[in-house]
C-alpha cells in the first residue's frame, strides 16, 4: 500500500489482509450505547458527559501549526482510523483545553519541566528525531516512518535530541503524552461503547454483579478478528512483570512479544 504523509491506514482483516470498512462503533459490543441510557443518569453526570460529546472546546492554547503536529502524533498514540470521521474523539481539543487552563494532576516529577514546557520541548525532540532517522520533519514523513520515530521514543532509545532528553525524562514524557491521549479517548462514551463499559449507573444501580452478566440494558460480547495496519509498529506489547518497582518499570522498554 502506498502511503503519503496524510494517510492513516486502517486495520485489516487478518484472513483477507484487506482494510476493514469504516464503522461508527468498533469493538465487540455491537448495538450497545451508553448514551442511549442517559435518561437514567442524574443531571450533573448527564451534563458532564453530554458536554464532552456536544461541546468540544475550541482550540485556544496550541498555535495552529502545533495543533496540526500534535493531532498527527495523537493519531499514532491512539489511532482512530477505523472509525467514521463523525465518530472520532477530538483528543487534541481535550489536551489543548487542559494546557490552556494550565491544569496539572497535582504534581510534577522532579526530572520533568511543567507540562506546557514538556510539550514544547517534545515537539522539538520529535522533529529532531525525525530528521536524524528519516531525514525530514515529522510531518513530512510517511506513516511508517512516523511509527518508526515514535517507537524509538516509546522504547526510550532516541538517536537525537540528547540535550532535550537531558532536561526531561523521555519515559515520563512518553507517559505524559500517551496519558493525555488516554484521558481524552477513554473519557468518551463512544470509547465506552467500544469496550463494553457500563458507564454511569446512578441512581439506577448495577444489579448483576457476578459472572460478567450484562444488565438488561447491556449487551453480550460478540468478538471478531482484526489486525493493525501492516505498517503499524504499535501492536506489540511487552510483559514487564519482572519490574516490581515503579522507577524501574517506567524506564523499562524491552519489546518481547509481538502479536503477529
Amino acid at each position, binding site marked *: 500500500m502506498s502511503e503519503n504523509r496524510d494517510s492513516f491506514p486502517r486495520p485489516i482483516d487478518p484472513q483477507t489482509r484487506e482494510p476493514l470498512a469504516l464503522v461508527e462503533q468498533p469493538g465487540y459490543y455491537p448495538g450497545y450505547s451508553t448514551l442511549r441510557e442517559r435518561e437514567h443518569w*442524574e443531571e450533573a453526570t448527564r451534563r458532564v458527559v453530554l458536554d464532552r460529546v456536544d461541546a468540544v472546546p475550541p482550540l485556544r492554547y496550541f498555535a495552529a501549526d502545533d495543533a496540526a503536529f500534535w493531532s498527527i502524533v495523537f493519531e499514532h498514540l491512539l489511532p482512530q482510523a477505523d472509525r467514521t470521521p463523525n465518530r472520532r474523539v477530538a483528543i487534541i481539543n481535550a489536551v489543548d483545553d487542559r494546557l490552556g487552563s494550565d491544569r496539572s494532576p497535582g504534581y510534577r516529577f522532579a526530572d520533568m519541566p511543567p507540562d506546557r514546557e514538556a510539550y514544547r520541548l517534545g515537539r522539538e525532540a520529535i522533529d529532531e528525531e525525525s530528521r536524524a532517522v528519516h531525514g525530514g520533519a515529522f510531518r513530512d514523513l510517511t506513516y511508517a516512518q512516523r511509527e518508526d520515530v515514535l517507537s524509538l521514543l516509546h522504547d526510550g532509545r532516541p538517536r537525537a535530541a540528547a540535550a532535550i532528553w537531558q532536561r526531561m525524562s523521555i519515559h515520563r514524557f512518553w507517559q505524559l503524552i500517551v496519558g493525555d491521549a488516554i484521558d481524552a479517548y477513554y473519557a468518551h462514551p463512544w470509547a465506552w461503547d467500544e469496550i463494553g463499559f457500563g458507564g454511569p449507573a*446512578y441512581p439506577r444501580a448495577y444489579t448483576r454483579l457476578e459472572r460478567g452478566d450484562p444488565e438488561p440494558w447491556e449487551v453480550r460480547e460478540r468478538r471478531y478478528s482484526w489486525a493493525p495496519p501492516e505498517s503499524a509498529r504499535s501492536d506489540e506489547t511487552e510483559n514487564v512483570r519482572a519490574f516490581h518497582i515503579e522507577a524501574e518499570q517506567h524506564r523499562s522498554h524491552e519489546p518481547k512479544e509481538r502479536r503477529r
Partner: protein
Amino acid sequence: MNGVAVNGYRPKAAPMRRYDETESVDYLIVGVGSAGGVLLQRLARAGFRVVGLEAGPFWEPERDWVSDEAGSHGLYWEDPRVTGGSDPLALGANNSGKGVGGGSVHWAAFTPRLHPSDFRTYSLDGVGVDWPIAYDELRPYYEQLELEMPVAGPAYYPWGHPHGYPYGPHPMGGVGNALVRGCSALDIPVSIGGPVAILSGSHGERPHCIYRGFCIQGCKVGAKASTLITHVPDALANGAEVRDRAMASRIELGRDGRVTGVHYYDDAGAERFQRARAVIVAGYAIETPRLLLNSACPGFERGLANSSGTVGRYLMAQAGNVILGRFDELVRMYKAPPAHALTEEFYETDARNDFARGFAIQTVGPLPIAFAKQMMAAKKAWGWGLRREMMDYNHWAAFGLLGEILPAADNRVTLSEERDRFGLRVAHVSFNLCDNDRKLIKAGTEKTMEVMWAAGAREVVQEARYAHLVGGARMGNDPATSVVDRFGRTHDVPNLFVCDGSVLPTQGSANPGLTIQALAARTADYLVSAGDAIFTSTSERVEAEPPLRKDLAPPATWGKGVPRLR
C-alpha cells in the same frame, strides 16, 4: 430529554454558625478531612467553639459529583507539588484529597485495623519504630469508628486481633470472586464482602450501596462513609463552623511560645487571620509538614514545632502494585465497589522470608481511564496495541498489593523554591525505597500474581505503583526524634496539635483511613478530658489515657448488633 430527576441524599443541615475573626475560638482545625471532620464533630459536641479551615470546597454531592472518571478531578489536590527521589511518588488523584471530607471523599473505603504487632515493629522485628501507644489503647476507638462509619464486613475477621463487623458483608463482584477463587485454590484464608465503610443496608437517613463502581470519584449515593456525611453534619448542628476555600498559609506564634491563630487566604485571595486558643493541624502527610515548615519564625527557624528536625521526615507510602489478570470469561470489573474482598494472611513478619513485615492482597476495580494507564505501564501498550487491550477491558480482573514500606528519615517533605498561586512555597517530596522494601514488594507482587493465576487467569501482568501516604510529623515519646506526643500535642508548643495521617510512626499493610479517624476520636477525648488546661500557659501535660466518650458519637451510631467475639 430531561431524564430522571434525583433528590439525592443530603444530610439534614442546620444553619451554620459563623465566628468573628477577632473572636478567639477554642480550636481552629486546619483541614476538614478524615481526621479534621471527626475532631470538629467531637469538640463541637463537647461544647467547644470550633472552626475548621478547609482549602477546598464544601461539597454538595448531588450537584458537584458525577459518575465519571474525567469529570472528578476536582476531588483531588491539584495544586503544584514536586516529587522526586530515587522512587518518586505519584500524588494528586493517587492519594491527596481536597474539599470537606478530604481523602474520605475519594477513598475506596477499605477499613482494616492495624494489627497489634504494628505498634511494636522495632521490638519485634528490629525495623521501623515502636509507637508510643499500644493496640489496646486504640482498640476502643477502632470499635467506635467502625460503628460510626459504619463498616460492613464478615462476622468473623481472623487477622490481627480477631473481631466482627456491625453491617453484613457485601455481595461479590467479578474481582472479588476471582480473589476468593484464587485464594481458595491455594488454601489462603480470605475476607469476603469487607471490611469496607460502605453501607450494605441503610443507616439512619443514609441509603444502601447500589454497586455503581464510582467509589473513588465520590459516592453520590451517600452509601460510602466520608466525614462530609458521617461527622461534619453533626459538627455543624453543634455549633461548629467550616470555612471552606480557605488556604492556611502560616501559624502565628505568640511571644509566650504559644500559638495565637492561623493566617489564611480566603476564596477571593485576601489574607485573613483567625485567632484561636489552640490549633490542630490536620492537613495530611504533605500539607501538614508544609504548613509547619512555612510557619518558620524566630525561635523555630527550621519550621514550627521542628526542634527535632523531624517535621517532614519519615514520610511513608505503601506498595500498591496492581496485578491484572485476563480471563476467558467476562468479569466486568466496573460493577461493585472496588473494595470488597482481601486477605491479610501475609501481613506479619515470616521467618521464612528475606524481609521483615508483610503485605495484604485486596480487590481493586479500575475504570477505563485508570485501566488504560495500567496497560500502558504493565504492557507498554500504545497505539493499536492499546486499542486492542482495551477492547478486552471486560475480561480483566485487578488485585491490589498493599505492602508495608518502612519509615526512613530521608523520605521527606521539604519546601521547594517554587511557589503556588498564593505565593507559598510548594512541597517537594522525596521518596526512596530501602532494601527491605524492594524485597517485600517483589515477594508480595509474585504472591499476588500466583493468586491471580490460581484464579484461572490466562495472562497476568502488573503495574508498579504506590498507595496512600502517612508520616511526616510522627508521634513518639522522645521530643528529639518525634514531632508530637502520643495524643498529638507537639512537643515544642503546648497549644499546637497535629492530628491526621502524618502522626503515624509506621503503617502496617492496612489502609490508613480507619486508623486516622480512630486516632482523631482519641485525641478529641484527650482534649475534652483536659478541658481548659489546654488553653492556659502551663506546659504541664496530662499523661493519663482519657475515658472513651461514647456520648460524643454522632446520632444513629447506636442500636446496631455487632458480632461479638470473646
